[in-house]
């Protein structure tokens, strides 16, 4: 955490907005709710402005209208070079949905090193090889965009955003995407990344068993991976939308179990408790905890 942040007592988080991104407002609300200090940084600002922040969130939406491929054009923006440098320095970076697609297309996730131990040659400069993709959803009898609430199981990893959450915890979160299937040309790479602790969230059934099949696994993602992080754990590409599950009242009626019960009780009480923390806040509180520990 920077000296200025320490003096203020809360971390400054840049919400990096490319044209077509549309989840910046709810992302800002969720960050503020977690006690962080969000600020919108649009693509029109110089990339060097990002250096003044402690953490970064790339929200969901359709950067550059998904032209060429989801996240492909934003991944070439100078801001991604700055984000890569900040991530190398240890700053947390979260990409949600389209933000995740940008991080993957930019090579920040899974990043260099990790399960294959590859790093750029000395003197080669920062070269984040693109090693996975967020491919088009693979769903039986349908194609394209798909949205629903899914269960995500928290795995034991060193990811900054989830490591404070008890492994095995189930979080109901909404997904909404057409290209969310983690895939790699190298057979077994996604599973190896999960095995190595770089998949902090995986699609699951309500009983906690991993979901390999549609619709619980909403896109056919290999190894039921819903999120991948870099080997260091400070850069996370997350397909579900935690900012859309920031309050209890936002939890879908399709969700049962503990979260469903809490939602029903809160709504029935009519006392404002439906505005209490929803399951998605776990991710943002995880970021706040990181700064509390590192202050």
């Amino acid at each position: 955490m920077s000296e200025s942040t320490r003096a203020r007592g809360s971390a400054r988080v840049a919400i990096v907005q490319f044209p077509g991104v549309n989840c910046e407002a709810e992302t800002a609300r969720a960050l503020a709710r977690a006690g962080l200090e969000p600020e919108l940084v649009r693509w029109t600002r110089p990339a060097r402005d990002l250096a003044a922040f402690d953490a970064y969130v790339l929200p969901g939406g359709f950067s550059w209208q998904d032209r060429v491929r989801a996240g492909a054009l934003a991944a070439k923006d100078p801001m991604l070079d700055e984000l890569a440098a900040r991530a190398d320095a240890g700053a947390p970076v979260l990409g949600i949905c389209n933000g995740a697609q940008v991080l993957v297309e930019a090579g920040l996730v899974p990043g260099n090193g990790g399960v294959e131990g590859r790093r750029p040659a000395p003197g080669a400069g920062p070269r984040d090889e693109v090693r996975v993709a967020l491919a088009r959803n693979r769903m039986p009898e349908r194609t394209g965009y798909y949205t629903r609430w899914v269960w995500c199981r928290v795995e034991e990893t060193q990811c900054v955003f989830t490591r404070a959450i008890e492994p095995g915890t189930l979080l109901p979160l909404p997904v909404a995407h057409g290209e969310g299937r983690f895939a790699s040309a190298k057979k077994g790479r996604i599973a190896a990344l999960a095995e190595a602790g770089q998949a902090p969230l995986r699609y699951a059934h309500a009983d906690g068993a991993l979901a390999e099949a549609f619709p619980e696994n909403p896109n056919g993602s290999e190894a039921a991976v819903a999120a991948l992080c870099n080997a260091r754990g400070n850069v996370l590409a997350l397909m579900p939308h935690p900012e859309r599950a920031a309050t209890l009242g936002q939890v879908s009626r399709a969700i049962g179990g503990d979260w469903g019960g809490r939602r029903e009780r809160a709504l029935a009480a009519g006392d404002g408790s439906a505005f209490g923390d929803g399951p998605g806040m776990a991710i943002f509180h995880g970021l706040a905890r990181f700064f509390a520990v590192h202050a």
Partner: protein
Amino acid sequence: MSPGGKQMAQAYVELVAEDAEATSALAIVRGRLAAGRRLTSVRRLRVFELAGTLPSRAQLEALLHRSTRFYNPAKERCTVRAAERESAPFRPEEALVLVLDRGLERRPAGERWWKHETGEKVEVREGTVWALAFEPGEDAAARAGELAEVQDRRHGLFANPHFQDWRPGTGASPPWPWIERPRKRAKEDRP
């Protein structure tokens, strides 16, 4: 004819208005990728390959025109190439990059519509063609090859090799067939 002895046709579909997707790709490639500094234009076309028992050219064009499964005549134009000797809507100097979503090239909805309308079973495949033109003197095929496959933030754009395949071509003689091209030959085509 396709290699399997089936009749074949290619249908190239392009927006009538300016294509924002191609415009953005041109700007990003020229501005950010070394291999694209001398790129002068980018066009994007969808290409369908139909294989099976096909009707006459006139009927083929009418069928494609009628179905929303292929293109929207209110905003797109379609050029049918019914034989290898026929021209396709490219300039000779353009280097072509065909991008396919691996394993998702088939268009079952188009095939079902065709069967319903004609009673014939045809195979329909779709890909995206990026037509790239460079300044004179540039090795267009080589530069297009460098731009085709994304490697990192500074290299490649049009296909992500982790779920997409790409196949080169030239505006003077686009491959025939192209989408259904055997994988080995497609690799041999690369610059």
